[in-house]
């Protein structure tokens, strides 16, 4: 097994405005994301040799990669549609990186888009799973709230203490998102608002849940040795991890519902490739899967940012704020961008890419000296987790 480290680089990225984009469809989102990436890399559709396209739901199952071909008129090249739950965006990136690293292609497009606001209903829907009975009334908030209940129980937090702890994550992410022009939600919130918000799935309230948004993001991936031909500040892929688990692995002895092996292993794979020994100290930024506030908390622990059971202390001390030791979800995360599933992994990667280049839209939220960053998606729970580590310099 060889590491992907420094074999490929990203030389252009695009990201749509996220939100309730009533007036645009899936094709428009694809165009908006791809053309920003083309412009950023200084390339055009004629330069694309292959495309990896990630989308989960829309408009119907079984349409392959037609959206990418149809919207972008990418004729005569291979296009691969990928779907891997919430990790779909990362999975498209991983496929593209492997295609380039193999030497089969020099320059490819990665595209992730999702149009959620065409169903007539809020949320990702009821019946998340594979079986018409076992998961008939399963919803995303209902599933992730199982983690919060168990976490509070395992670590002896009262519902009040537990909710205040994860509530601080919502306040932090909304603060960060308020400075991000492409975010869906750009409002600051207070901890009291979080605590008093209506319950969506106990113990999770409205502000513990990410929004339901439309969006798309894209990347141009090239061979690392060509990267400087496109720009002076390409961003290099340092590690790519992806790990799976069963639909409901909770029959495995010791499965706790507060720690997920898919998360631990996807991070381990990426850290090993990137040569990261101590992520808490070595990473300068992490944009992670805060679909719910509790998810962000357990990610801190499973990805080695905090010890297991120690996330509360780091949250309370502000370790993950813009000024903290490891800023997390600097763009507001899924909390402020929402979670158009196929786009999210690439939207997160876009934030890491821009921060490494020092090109966050507003100086107020640009971090200093970002050399190594991580993006991460987690789906299910608890089946799938994907990690990408990016850096500004080879070596």
């Amino acid at each position: 097994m060889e590491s992907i480290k420094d074999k490929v680089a990203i030389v252009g990225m695009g990201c749509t405005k996220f939100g309730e984009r009533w007036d645009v469809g899936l094709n428009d989102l694809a165009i908006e994301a791809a053309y920003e990436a083309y412009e950023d890399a200084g390339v055009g559709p004629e330069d694309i040799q292959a495309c990896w396209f990630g989308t989960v739901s829309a408009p119907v199952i079984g349409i392959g990669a037609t959206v990418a071909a149809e919207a972008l008129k990418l004729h005569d090249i291979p296009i691969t549609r990928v779907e891997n739950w919430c990790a779909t965006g990362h999975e498209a990136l991983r496929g593209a990186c492997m295609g380039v690293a193999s030497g089969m292609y020099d320059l490819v497009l990665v595209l992730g888009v999702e149009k959620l606001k065409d169903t007539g209903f809020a949320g990702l829907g009821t019946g998340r799973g594979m079986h018409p009975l076992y998961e008939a009334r399963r919803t995303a908030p209902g599933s992730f709230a199982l983690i919060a209940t168990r976490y509070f129980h395992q670590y002896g937090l009262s519902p009040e203490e537990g909710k205040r702890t994860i509530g601080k994550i919502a306040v932090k992410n909304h603060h960060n998102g308020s400075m991000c022009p492409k975010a869906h939600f750009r409002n600051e919130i207070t901890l009291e608002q979080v605590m008093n918000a209506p319950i969506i799935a106990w113990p999770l309230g409205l502000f513990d849940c990410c929004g339901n948004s439309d969006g798309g993001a894209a990347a141009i991936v090239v061979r690392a040795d060509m990267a400087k031909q496109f720009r002076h500040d390409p961003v290099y892929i340092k590690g790519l991890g992806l790990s799976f688990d069963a639909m409901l692995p909770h029959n495995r002895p010791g499965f706790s519902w507060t720690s997920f092996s898919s998360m631990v292993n996807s991070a381990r794979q990426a850290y090993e490739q990137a040569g990261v020994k101590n992520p808490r100290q070595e990473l300068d930024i992490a944009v992670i899967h805060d679909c719910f506030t509790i998810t962000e908390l357990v990610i801190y622990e499973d990805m080695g940012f905090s010890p297991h059971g120690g996330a509360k202390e780091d949250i309370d001390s502000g370790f993950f704020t813009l000024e903290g030791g490891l800023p997390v979800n600097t763009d507001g995360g899924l909390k402020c961008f929402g979670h158009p599933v196929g786009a999210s992994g690439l939207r997160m990667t876009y934030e890491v890419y821009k921060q490494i280049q020092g090109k966050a839209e507003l100086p107020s939220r640009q971090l200093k000296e970002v050399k190594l960053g991580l993006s991460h998606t987690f789906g299910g729970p608890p089946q799938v987790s994907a990690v990408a580590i990016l850096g500004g310099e080879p070596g």
Partner: protein
Amino acid sequence: MVGITSFGAYIPLFRLSRDAIAKAWLRDSLGGERSVANSDEDSMTMAVEAAFDCLRGVERKNVDGLFFASTTAPYKEKQCSTLVAAVADMESEIITADYANCLRAGTNALRSALNAVSAGRARNILVAAADCRLGYPRSDFEQSFGDGAAALLVGDSGAIATLEESYSCSEEMLDVWRTDEDTFVRSWEGRWVLGEGYSANIQRATKEVMKRSRLEPKDFAKAIFPSPDTRTHRRLAQSTGFDIGSQVQDPLLAAVGHCGAAHSLMMLVAALEEAKPGDRILLTSYGDGADAFVFQVTEEIEKLEERRGVKGHIASKMSLPSYERYLSYRDIVGTVPSEPFRLFPSATVLWRDRNSTLRCHGSRCRRCGVVSYPIQRICINCRSKDDFEEVRLSDKGGKVFTFSSDNLAGRSDDPVVVQTVVESEEGAARIYCMMTDCQPSEVKVDMPVELTFRRIYEGAGFHNYFWKCRPPREGGK
């Protein structure tokens, strides 16, 4: 000796005060309360509950027949006894039959079971009766009906009550009925229905069965007359010569309501709960004629393990918060259409997975002992392939490992769905399911739960049933 070898009953958790119904319609109240099936219950699921109560301590493989009786079967074409039998984890080489269309369906099924066992064509037949009838809004029936179920195991040895005599007669009259298109029960003029129909037939059958068994009212410990109302019940008891105070079984109307085809068997279960060896019990049920039985209770009754029966289920209850909730639980008023389910129901999936979905079997790995639910061909712990035995989890208790109270997954009349991970006492198997019959605000990690078979949604033109958990009802573990 052929007779009843075990019994069980089921009454839904919810009770609705008749005053609340009366208040909604600005009319008089019949007093007391009636049972109301939850929105995820129907006659089939209630029959399953009663069957499980009856099967405590009974080897499933010894049961070679299952009869289901109801006037409100969830299917017009499609047998329910096969479904009840599968859920109760019976063998497949059994006789099944549905009894329907008549208030006497419960005792019709009981009589057929007694006949079949007497004739030596079967050894043990489970009779499960349930009903969930609807009275027109504002009608007396709406108040006087209840929802419930009973189950009796009929066998050729070890009877707790042996059959001494039986008698049946048929009477063709349109007293109470529903056409194939009716939702609510219709009836002709009450005085004729109660006089020429109900009372005349019960009197005739009661008299005749006593004559044939050469017994008189004084020879009976209990006489059971399932009745549509308390006044008729009292008059009937007097006219047949039984002492209302000491000999006549409570008609279950004040606390439960008339449970249709199941009612006569529920009253029999209630009588057996109080019976002593040597007691004679008379049961006469009515519906397009009458069925009468004389049973004698044996010493075996003292060996029966504790069960919930009628008494336990009456004692464990929760108030339905409003009459309107009853209307929507019974689909008399509509609920807001929800987003279509993402996972489309499939008859072939249900059939293929029936050992997990209906029989509630998990798999126990023969190599490492880990129990998984649903059945897994490859063990999640040691990856051994196709090396497992199936274990029934439906009658095992458990506790809540974790839960959430989900406001997005429910019906508009019951928006909060409690999602749970249950840890079974069988090998600590974890079961992901919904919780029903609970107060969401009172759910806690580690609280004890038991499994219950419920109707979880409609789709593809059929009813989709699956297991849920609930806080344990009182009595019998």
